[in-house]
């Protein structure tokens, strides 16, 4: 379950500040639409979370308590309290709660490191949020939005049915 | 310690499979040589083992009573088969001695009769202790994982019941329908060949990094460490604990009993007591973490931590 090269290539070409601007826009929009996330996160909102797509050259640092997300080239990613590594599409699937985090951990498609309590709190908080990226960012413009929308639609149309097929 | 009555020593049932003569001789020494006041005997772990001790129960009870000890009979900890249910029913029906209940079926059957409650029954609060007392429980050995704060509250909230603390021995941590001990030797429970008898003190389970961690005792899992609440005796006495339970290990239990007797009476310092326990149980690793609400495997030397 990896990002198609058609998506990965543009991401490599776009300068980090541009990716970061777009990501922040999406992030703040999602946070505003899902305030319940904070309630469920409780004190874990103050932890620093890393999301590291294994198939992209960048990683994301999320600090929910500060309402902040930043994008870094992988070697420059600042220290985190807890981090999750896996394919970009898979990470988006987890964000939306369309994939079961435990199942992709069991299958070794996902690795988690650091403070497991914090990671579990975030997982559970996200799971209750019903984030739906296409509709959450539907109104947004910017260079990154089409990419995320495309990734999200990849989850729907290509990746998830194929995965489901493998279960049979 | 002023005003508090000193607790007496009690001996829990042998948890391991010892052959009949070894089991009998162990109790003869307990009868003849120790200051232990109460002795609980009987197989609690596995119903398949019952026949090993049955031929010797009569003479052991007689010898213990002749030495002035009070004797109770322990019921099975895990009852799933009809045969096991019958064993418990027969024990409750026929016993001329008080029974220590170790599962809910015994608790149910003993309603209205004076009995004691073993450490494997979940008594975590005063409400539960009082309920059991109202049904006939006269003494309760609290679960080994209970922290001191809970012990204090339960004893305070439950007048009229003698409370007992699991103060020495590998801690019974879990019990299963499956026999890990038999499996570890390539056998299954139904044809186990009583292989657990090869390990009279339990079979050590190490982590993959060779760190000793647990021990197998048939269907039961016990701790690798030996829980030792001896520096904690003053606060246990102050809290009103009536009995200090020693759980038999394959070591010099007569010496262990004397060490605890001296410590209760204030005749020895904790450091000396621990050194003597190590002589009696060579190679043992002691723990007391549960008492402090910490990991059970921990050893906390500074008892001012509470």
């Amino acid at each position: 379950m990896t990002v198609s090269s058609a998506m990965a290539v543009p991401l490599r070409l776009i300068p980090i500040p541009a990716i970061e601007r777009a990501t922040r826009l999406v992030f703040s929009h999602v946070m505003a639409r899902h305030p319940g996330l904070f309630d469920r996160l409780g004190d874990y909102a103050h932890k620093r979370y890393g999301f590291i797509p294994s198939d992209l050259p960048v990683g994301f640092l999320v600090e929910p308590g500060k309402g902040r997300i930043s994008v870094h080239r992988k070697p420059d990613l600042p220290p985190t309290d807890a981090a999750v590594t896996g394919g970009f599409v898979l990470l988006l699937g987890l964000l939306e709660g369309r994939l079961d985090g435990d199942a992709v951990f069991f299958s070794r498609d996902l690795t988690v490191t650091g403070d497991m309590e914090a990671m579990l709190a975030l997982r559970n908080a996200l799971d209750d949020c019903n984030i739906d990226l296409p509709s959450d960012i539907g109104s947004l413009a910017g260079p990154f939005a089409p990419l995320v929308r495309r990734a999200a639609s990849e989850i729907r149309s290509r990746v998830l049915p194929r995965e489901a097929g493998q279960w049979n | 310690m002023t005003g508090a009555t000193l607790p007496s020593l009690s001996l829990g049932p042998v948890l391991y499979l010892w052959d009949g003569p070894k089991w009998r001789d162990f109790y003869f020494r307990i009868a003849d040589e120790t200051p232990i006041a109460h002795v609980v005997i009987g197989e609690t772990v596995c119903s398949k083992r019952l026949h090993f001790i049955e031929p010797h129960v009569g003479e052991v009870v007689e010898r213990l009573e002749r030495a002035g000890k009070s004797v109770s009979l322990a019921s099975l900890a895990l009852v799933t088969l009809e045969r096991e249910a019958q064993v418990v029913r027969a024990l409750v029906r026929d016993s001329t001695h008080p029974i220590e209940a170790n599962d809910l079926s015994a608790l149910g059957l003993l309603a209205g009769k004076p009995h004691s409650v073993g450490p494997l029954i979940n008594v975590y609060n005063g409400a539960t202790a009082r309920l059991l007392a109202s049904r006939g429980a006269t003494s309760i050995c609290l679960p080994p994982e209970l922290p001191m704060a809970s012990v204090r509250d339960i004893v305070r909230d439950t007048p009229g019941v003698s409370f007992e603390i699991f103060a020495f021995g590998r801690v019974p941590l879990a019990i299963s329908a499956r026999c890990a001990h038999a499996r570890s030797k390539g056998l299954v429970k139904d044809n186990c060949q009583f292989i657990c008898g090869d390990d009279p003190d339990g079979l050590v389970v190490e982590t993959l990094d060779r760190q000793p961690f647990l021990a197998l005792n048939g269907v039961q899992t016990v701790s690798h460490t030996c829980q030792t609440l001896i520096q904690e005796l003053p606060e246990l006495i102050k809290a009103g604990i009536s009995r200090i339970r020693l759980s038999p290990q394959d070591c010099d239990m007569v010496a262990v009993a004397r060490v605890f007797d001296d410590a209760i009476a204030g005749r020895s310092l904790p450091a000396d007591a621990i050194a003597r326990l190590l002589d009696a149980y060579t190679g043992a690793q002691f723990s007391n973490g549960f008492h402090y609400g910490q990991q059970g495997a921990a050893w906390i030397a500074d008892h001012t931590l509470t």
Partner: protein
Amino acid sequence: MELICPAGTPAAFREAVDAGADAVYCGFRDETNARNFPGLNFSRDELKAAIAYARQHGAMTFVAINTFMRAGREKLWHEAVDDAVRLGADAVILADFGLMAYTAERYPEQRLHVSVQASASNADAVNFLVETFRAKRVVLPRILTIPDLARLAKQIRCEIEVFVFGGLCVMAEGRCSLSSYATGKSPNMNGVCSPASHVRYREDGCELVSELGDYTINRFPAGEAAGYPTLCKGRFNVADERGYAFEDPVSLDVMDHVDLLREAGVSALKIEGRQRGKAYVAEVVSVMRRALAANAADRPALISRLRLLSEGQRTTSGAYEKRWR
């Protein structure tokens, strides 16, 4: 037979109801229930909304208050029962005798179920709880064979609920201090087994190492399916043999025996997994619902889709079959 489904969050609760649960069980966001994990479980308001949603769709709500009351903190457990009753829980699932007594006395009309954590594994034990606390149903520990269940059903005066799918406790439930021994947090007192606060994963060469507190619980070579760092499913050395001392990282699946369970007199089938995500709940509940309606011959194909969602990606019928022992 009723299908009893897990929910750790309101979103999972709705998924379970939509997928055809007869009842959904859940707990409050504190130590009063045995899945006290960070970010999981329900506030009072969330439970109220969940119960209303279930009612609209003809489903029941069971509230698990199935840890043991901490001495001196009984109020937390009492309030959990008070609120569950007040909000209209169809049943409360309890393990502690003291709390059962409180509930039976205060709320004689409230339906009381005996949690698996109470460890009632035989007829005398169950009848004790039925007579003393008027329990209407018992959730049996995962240590009985199907013939054991059938025999038990004839000797007791309440309904039987059994686990059929999900996590597998190898030890008798409610009587296990393994996790407490390694971490200081107790399943019985704190509602956590292998608490996340003490779990670490690290890579060692190409192995994934899982640790709980100071102990290595497993090393997974590259490509091998992983599991939770639960002690009873860890890999250890016993007498110089390296392996799974208690049980492999597998989960429970007894759907092949569902007709036997019905004949044995079982009233309700329970799915484990309040800690799992809503995607899992939706998938498992809908497949189970279809499997229950299907012919026995068609069930294995339906259920096999769930295997890859399971711990270790393998399943076992556990103690329900005698050879497991």
